[in-house]
């Protein structure tokens, strides 16, 4: 537990040197990494999406690949292709862009649906199958896909089902004035990225992921997660609520956040904190709500303010037995 806290702290500290004034984003990125999920970065260009990804890759001492998604990008560019080698007279597999620990898919909505789904499939399966041969992807495997929310012309927005594959959606946002000034100074001096040295490696990240997966989450807390997710489905402004996959994602993310905070147990605050990031991109609001300028974040704020926080997990949870009792009667 202690080691976990130390390592994550080291990564955070290191990345903070390049991502001035955005510790929250860095932390959430780490959450995603430890939870084994992927991140959808939805932001205007030029706020440091690529920098963030590269910084993470350097700090972890693992491979980073960047794919610029364009309308003519082919699925095989993502996954890889089998090529006939004339010298040896054999087909050999040439890995695509996803064969890296950290993959940055820039402007993912610019590529066609076929290419998009190739990436998303790889994200979900953690493996790629080409010509009947399955190739495992490296671990850890983190996809950071960016999307420009402004330019809608000539884009293929991710369908709801695809968005569900991302653990969380983040937006970096513009830096504060001071931070921006700092950016100017830093970048003026040269490449700070090159100065980053790895603080950990892929194998320890895998170990951390294992530890995180076993973190204690009390039954009452899991119930709280379910309550929150169910509440999104019952909210009047929501047409399509969060899926059970979302519940799972929320629990995984909460565990990772608890670990980063140095705790060996999850608390409701973790869940509350992560709910907007984990659930917002999965909600589809009703047309009326969208006309009324409501956003998923508003809905989630309302949900969080209405679902009571469990106060204890000392003793068995009475919630389940009671429900059971009611159905037995």
């Amino acid at each position: 537990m202690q080691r976990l806290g130390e390592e994550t702290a080291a990564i955070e500290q290191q990345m903070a040197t390049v991502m001035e004034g955005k510790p929250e984003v860095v932390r959430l990125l780490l959450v995603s990494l430890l939870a084994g999920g992927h991140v959808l970065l939805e932001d205007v260009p030029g706020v440091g999406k690529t920098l963030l990804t590269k910084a993470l890759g350097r700090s972890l001492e693992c491979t980073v690949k960047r794919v610029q998604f364009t309308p003519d990008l082919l699925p095989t560019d993502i996954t890889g292709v089998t090529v006939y080698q004339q010298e040896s007279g054999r087909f050999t597999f040439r890995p695509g862009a996803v064969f890296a620990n950290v993959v940055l898919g820039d402007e993912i909505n610019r590529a066609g649906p076929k290419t998009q789904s190739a990436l998303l499939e790889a994200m979900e399966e953690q493996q790629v199958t080409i010509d009947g041969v399955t190739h495992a992807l490296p671990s850890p495997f983190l996809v950071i896909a960016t999307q420009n929310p402004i330019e809608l012309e000539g884009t293929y927005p991710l369908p709801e089902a695809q968005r569900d594959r991302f653990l969380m959606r983040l937006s970096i946002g513009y830096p504060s004035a001071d931070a921006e000034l700092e950016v100017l100074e830093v970048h003026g001096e040269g490449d700070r990225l090159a100065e980053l040295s790895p603080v950990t490696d892929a194998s320890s990240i895998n170990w951390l992921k294992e530890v995180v997966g076993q973190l204690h989450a009390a039954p009452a807390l899991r119930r709280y997660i379910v309550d929150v997710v169910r509440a999104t489905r019952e909210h009047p402004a929501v047409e399509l609520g969060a899926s059970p996959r979302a519940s799972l994602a929320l629990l995984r993310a909460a565990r990772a956040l608890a670990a980063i905070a140095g705790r060996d147990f999850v608390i409701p605050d973790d869940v509350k904190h992560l709910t907007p990031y984990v659930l917002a991109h999965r909600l589809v609001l009703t047309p009326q709500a969208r006309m009324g300028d409501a956003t998923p974040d508003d809905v989630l704020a309302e949900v969080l303010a209405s679902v009571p926080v469990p106060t204890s997990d000392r003793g068995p949870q009475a919630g389940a037995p009671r429900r059971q009792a009611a159905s037995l009667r």
Partner: protein
Amino acid sequence: MTARPTAESTAGPCTAAGRPVSEWLLVGACAALMAAAVLPFARVFVGVEFARPVAAAILLSLGGQSLARRAGGGPLTGLLVGIVAWSMFVALAFLPASTLYGGFVPTSETLRAGAELFADGVELVRTRPAPTFPVPGLMVLTVTGVWWVAHAVDVLAVRLRSPLHAVAAALVLWTVPLAVTTTPGGQAWRWAVPLLIAAVAVLLLGSDTARMGRARRVGGGSVAPAFGWVTGLGAVVAGVLLVGLVPGFGERALVQPGGSGGGLTTTDNPMVDIRSNLVDQSRIPVARVSSPEPVYLRLTSLERFDAGQRWTNDGIRGDPVSGPLPAEAQQPLSRSLNVEVEALGLSGAVLVPAPYQPRAISSPRLEDLRWDSDLATLTMTGDERLANGDSYELAVEVPNPPLEALREVDVSEANPALTRVPELPEEVGALAQRIVSEAGADTAVDRALAIQQELRSWEYSLNPPAGHGSNAMRSFIQRRVGYCEQFAGTMAAMLRSLGIPARVAVGFTPGERVGDSEYIVRRANAHAWVEVLFPDYGWVSFEPTPRSDGNVLTPGAEAGMAPTQLDSQLTRRPQSTATPDFGQQQGPPQQPTPSPAAPDAGPDAEAAGGQPAGGGLPWTWLGVAVVGLAGGGLLWGRRQPRSAAIVAPGEVLARVQRVERLGAGLGRPREASETDAEYLAAVARDAQRAQPLVAAVERARWAPTVPAGADEAAGEAEAAIRAHRLGGLGRVTRAMVAVRSWGYGARCWVKRARAGEGRRAATLTAGPPGAR
């Protein structure tokens, strides 16, 4: 918002913790606790008939509550069920069926009968000595008390899961009979053991964090709860050993019941029981005596001057009464009388009052009577007790030897035990010598008369220091003020110091004449006097006690007993003609207020000097145990220096609840959707200030294990929050805050009780609560 969270798991800020132990187990433990708590009532009641209604009350009270809970009723419903069930029970069990409509439904007549029964019971409590018979009036009070204590125990232990309070309630019930009654030679240990076992069961099962069969290792790692072990063991040892100091565990009760009518229950020292009555001015009748002449009713005699401390006897034996009673001493010169005694206020008594000296008895309860010819004492046998209304006829031979005959008796032939006065204060013997030599008396009877006359010139007071041991005797002869016990005790001791066999008799003076040959003896007539043994003639009575009005009454005066017959120079007024009421004559203007405990304290204090540790309390062992435990604890603590105090999750949660109450008092109650961190930071107005408490409570609520020592920082944080928020407030504002906090606390209490309710009902239906 249509979000409908499940209220049961997330009942908001004031939710109680889960209840893992089966409710039935806990109710069973409560029943056992109550059963153990009512065991000492066996001291209050004669026989075992009292047990049935009391057991029924416990079972019905607890059962009613269980059913009410099962049916989903809250505390109020439970209370209503309790009231209805209790009134039905009382009506059916104690009130005449004729007052019930259809033999079942109570009517206004039932109510009236019930009220009368209660009034009767209250009256009986004041007048009846313990042990007494389980008459309806007393039983209705007992059953009512037991019923509602059981109700309270149930509410506290099962509904509120506050087992300590439940045990305290039962403990009160348990203590009452032990505190107010005497044990007839019994030990209360046997009543303490079941109570302790049941209490431990309730404490274990009812505890907030109790889990059957699984001990929880708090904090993980090497927890060495040396402190807890040592404290627990010390508590057990101290509890077992010190329990002997609790009133009722010894031979005598701390408090003599106010209504110890005649105080005739036996203990090792009848004087102790009787003493409070010797100064009692109550006009409560004790007995009705039919006799041709006024007679002293004798209860027993005290033959042993106990190690210089007090008059007592070596215990009363008893032979069955069949045919003529053997004479205590040959009494050739005596008069025969036929006396009939009817008990009026002697219920529960063991010593049967009788004139001296009975030779034959006829009574419907003859087979229950026993006679001790050495002490001339009539007693009830075994568990039998005298009941009011009992009557018995005695053929009495009153010693009546002439003075001349007594002068010729050589008293030195008597049993040497009867002249033994160990550790008698020197002044007493010296005073006796001086009186005798001044009077020039040289025979035993003359010496006795001289001392009697001297003492009669002293002052009578009902407010003397109690007791008749060495110290009391010393102060008595210095101040020359006392009451019958001291007069009789001192005279008997003086006579013995002169070699004259003497003893103290206790009983009643003849009482008030109400008819031709009928006397009513009241409690105020309780008395002590002196008997001197004249071989060949028997025990002859002397009366050293002066009257407050200057009259001196002499035992058997009208019966023409020797000392007074010949003692014609003494000024005394025949009482038979004037039919004086002893109670009134004897009484000084002011009502005496003898402290019930005081009579006991006297001899006990005296005994302590003479016989250290005689009471059986193993002081040595206690000391060894305490020192051993302390040493062991120190050693253990040294071996495991890192063992820190273990903080139960409940303590931290209680802190948060206090902050919640504070916040509510300050107008910022907790929202259901707020986490601990959010709420505590809001109340503290600074996340940093609340941080230690937040960390502790998060761990307490959500962590798989709770580490040691987390509470100190949390406590400081709580204090800091409190200080910060209340610091600048005025007194009035603070009061307002406190009131609002209490209101919030009360609402939470109700909410918790209700939540616990539903939860338990759910648990019951869904089967045993499983592990998570």
